[in-house]
């Protein structure tokens, strides 16, 4: 009985901690251009991997560790983020991106199934630090266009680009 209660309490602690760390995510109904049908399972995987990419992006730019991008980014997006990390390290800053909300809509699934494009109305806090001294904090609301491509076991972000609203 005691053991069962402990397990339940542990579960609640873990889940409440997890929830506090989560951003609000809304996935809009897909409005696809293209002939290929997007299965629900694929849509779920794409959104899950995209949100995980945001997490690794947040951590990598906060800690200036490019290797944290390896699992979730590929191609141009990865190159650009790695470049930013190198530039941040060089000028002695790091940046914390805390994503508050995502409003995601998948807009294109290429006919051969090798890319998915989504747009995300994202809201995040951007904090810039000079070493450990806070320089600035800004609440940003931006529209991101992202292209993901399938890799061995997951979708990886190939393009991640903010565009003016």
């Amino acid at each position: 009985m005691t053991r069962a209660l402990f397990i339940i309490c542990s579960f609640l602690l873990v889940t409440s901690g997890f929830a506090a760390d989560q951003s609000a995510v809304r996935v809009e109904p897909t409005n696809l251009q293209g002939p290929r049908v997007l299965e629900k399972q694929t849509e779920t995987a794409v959104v899950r991997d995209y949100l995980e990419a945001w997490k690794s992006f947040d951590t990598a730019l906060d800690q200036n560790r490019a290797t944290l991008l390896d699992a979730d980014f590929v191609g141009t997006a990865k190159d650009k983020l790695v470049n930013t990390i190198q530039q941040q390290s060089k000028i002695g800053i790091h940046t914390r991106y805390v994503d508050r909300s995502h409003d995601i809509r998948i807009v294109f699934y290429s006919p051969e199934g090798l890319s998915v494009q989504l747009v995300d109305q994202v809201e995040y806090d951007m904090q810039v630090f000079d070493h450990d001294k806070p320089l600035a904090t800004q609440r940003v609301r931006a529209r991101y266009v992202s292209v993901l491509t399938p890799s061995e076991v997951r979708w990886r972000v190939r393009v991640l680009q903010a565009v003016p609203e």
Partner: protein
Amino acid sequence: MKVGLQYLGLGFLVAALQPAFAQSGNLHMPKTVQAGSAFSIESTGSGKAVLYIVGPVQALRRDVQLGEPTSFPPGTIYNAGHYLAILTGPSSTEQSEFDVVPENKPAALSFLARPSRISVSLHNGITGAVYVFDAYQNLITAPMPVSFQLSGTASAPQTRTVNTRDGAAWTQMDSASKEGAAKFVAQASDVSSSRIIQQVPGDPCGLRMTARPAGEKIELQTDPVRDCSGNAVPDGTIVTFTENYNGTQSTVDVPLKRGIAKVEMPAHDGARISAATGVVLGNEVRWGKQ
């Protein structure tokens, strides 16, 4: 120095051409900058300060003199995205947001064409998808026309023009009725990318066989096997000959060689012999007197 002055002049010019400016206290700057173009940021006050420009895809730092414009020559900020400019002076910190947008001129296409090998005469069997990028590998999200053309040796080219949405465009094309290589080209402005699509014969459309005596055996031979468009079905395609005689059945699988299949089978009076390939059943031959 001369180059510096040119940059400075260009910076003022470009900044002056921007339709809108962001202003936050001491910071005065364009709200939107085209990737790779020159621009300048103006500040008020006096003394030295540090200007940071930080975004997810680029970060830089400049020592600046307050009250003087800070010019960024062409190619300084080239990755499209949302940026924060932070000016830390001796007594205060100012910040302002701005966007870097892609160039309008395409420089590279990411062209996905499928399949690389396809049967002839398939409606909408060939697909192409394109993402359009500028010279800095920014996705050009402003709509622009992309033309797709599929041209082969035996048929008139198919052309479609599609406007991009958020940087992507796609199309579908029919494979030609004649076998052979087709060139699939996507073009945006003066940038193009091409892929080769191999169009191969489809499934056999009909099968006809003839039989003639060859000693104690029957020599069976098909006519040249073709698809429904008249293309020769590739050598190696299997034709199955089946002989039924007196309640027993024997089959022989023979690959096409030079378009035909040929085999010898036992000559039994009253035997019924048929040939098939894929889903196509050919004619039946009854051998002998019975």
